[in-house]
């Protein structure tokens, strides 16, 4: 098997794979390098050697907006939304999988239907509702709807059905455990790998969400990170200096890169799970 032709072909394949990887990373590399150069340098020359303008660019960026404030706002939305999504999706999934009650099938069917409905369909009605309830510029419309996350309930229901045996629940009942106790002490630990994958994907989704927060939030001091980043469009100071734009982008993606470096395994496995389960 190990002929020369085989080895050459295999090497070529590896080179192509690495080149594709470089394509994925190159824009980030250019971003990091350019974030340290002046707008003038970027416009007139190309290099991969960092420049000396990092501090100047930093000052330009933070004179225009406080990205850390945006990050903090995003944390205030993404963390409660993710936690609510996980807890209530687990509870709903547990109930749909373990109890026989009227309407169980109807709820599950409705979940399936709504999973197929594109998000933009209810957008106008959603905004109307928020105006009527005086929830514009509030985080409530960005957090509370996470309690009803159809996709997560669907995924966790399958997870409960395949990993939690009803006899375990019955045994706990005979021992006198309450239903809520069973959910907290038996179901949640069994679901935890599924919760971890859903939680990380949910967090990233919430963190990166743009359209809905843009519609709901228009006060500067309340903007989440992506919405704040979008205001760059309006800044003439920063647009005059490309180095500052690169720096803003670089700062804005640091948190998600940190999350990814810790949880990449879960993230990859959740995409795989999504593909195989459906």
């Amino acid at each position, binding site marked *: 098997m190990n002929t020369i032709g*085989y080895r050459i072909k295999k090497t070529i394949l590896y080179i192509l794979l690495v080149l594709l990887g470089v394509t994925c990373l190159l824009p980030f590399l*250019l971003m990091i390098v350019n974030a340290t150069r002046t707008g003038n340098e970027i416009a007139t020359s*190309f290099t991969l050697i960092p420049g000396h303008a990092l501090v100047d660019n930093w000052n330009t960026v933070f004179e225009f907006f406080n990205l850390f404030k945006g990050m903090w706002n995003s944390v205030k939305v993404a963390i409660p939304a993710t936690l609510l999504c996980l807890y209530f999706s687990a509870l709903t999934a547990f109930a749909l999988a373990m*109890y026989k009650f009227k309407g169980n099938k109807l709820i599950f069917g409705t979940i399936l239907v709504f999973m197929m409905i594109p998000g933009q369909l209810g957008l106008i*009605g959603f905004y109307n509702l928020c105006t009527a309830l005086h929830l514009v510029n509030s985080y409530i419309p960005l957090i509370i709807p996470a309690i*009803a996350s159809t996709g997560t309930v669907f995924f966790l229901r399958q997870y409960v059905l395949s990993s939690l045996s009803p006899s375990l629940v019955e045994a706990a009942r005979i021992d006198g455990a309450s239903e809520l106790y069973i959910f907290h002490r038996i179901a949640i630990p069994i679901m935890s790998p599924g919760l971890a994958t859903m939680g990380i994907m949910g967090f990233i989704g919430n963190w990166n969400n743009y359209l809905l927060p843009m519609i709901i939030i228009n006060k500067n001091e309340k903007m989440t990170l992506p919405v704040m980043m979008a205001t760059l469009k309006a800044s003439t100071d920063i647009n005059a200096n490309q180095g500052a*734009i690169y720096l803003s*982008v670089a700062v804005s*993606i640091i948190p998600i890169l940190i999350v990814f470096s810790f949880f990449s395994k879960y993230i990859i496995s959740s995409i795989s799970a999504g*593909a195989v389960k459906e």
Partner: protein
Amino acid sequence: MKKRKKSNLTKYNNMGYVFVLPFVVVFLIFNVYPVLRTLYLSFTNTKIVGVGEPDWVGFNNYVRCLTDKFFWKALWNTVKMWGVNIILQLGLAFLLMMVFSDVKYKMKGLKVFRIVYYLPNLIAATSVAFLFQTLLDWRYGTFNRIILEIYKLFGMQYNPVDWLGSGATAPYVISVIQTWMWFGNSFIMLMAGVQGISNDYFEAAAIDGAGRWTIFGKITLPLIKPIMMYVAITSLIGGLQLFDMPFLMSNASSVSYKDMQTVVMYMYKFGFTTGTTQTGYASAIAYVLFLIILTVSVIQVKLFNRKED
């Protein structure tokens, strides 16, 4: 005794109602109501909600939408951007899947490669948009600068292309960026499908002396078909709702805008932009897009299932 057991079980089962209650309440308020409210608005001539008394206008908004040449242009833009994107994205993911599942070459390093390929998908659309907008800037962008330096090496003149300003290139630039963001995701999904195939099949085929192309065509391909359909449908549903990237990378005053405006951007114009707000019409656009997505998904499912016979 039996009766008591049954009533006990009913008691337990009644807890199901309690447990699903928070989900149901929030679902009705924030999912069901908005969708129905949008449907109602689509049959009225509401301009701005709460301002004036809207009239019921029947299907007027729908007729207007279907005869609105800007709507059709926006739909064509969306289909074009999505179409080029999905061919590149699935094509690339498919090739990678072939490479990594090849029984002859047995490529290593899947875990590292898929992390690298997936990385662009993590970044918020706003950050990606500004990154590429700046890199692709006509006069000062690093992308044109690199091409210029390469041309210079060969002693040639390069006339900088205005990638995002020209209607001839801008939509395809969006497609390529979308591909850059999403091919890793599709690849991981396809690979998950391949890895889900039992090794017994491959071993049995090897014993029967099947070649690698036969194995690919007769085992791998048919078994990952459901996943390919899933990838294609989710990408279609997402693709026809394309908004973030073209919205952020286009400029209403630029020449290329009319080639970059997608259906959701067009809806946004009437739904949420001060000065052009026509909520009733925007709602109808949302429903027409929904019906289009629904129809295409159903056709897709039918086509995929028919091939199975």
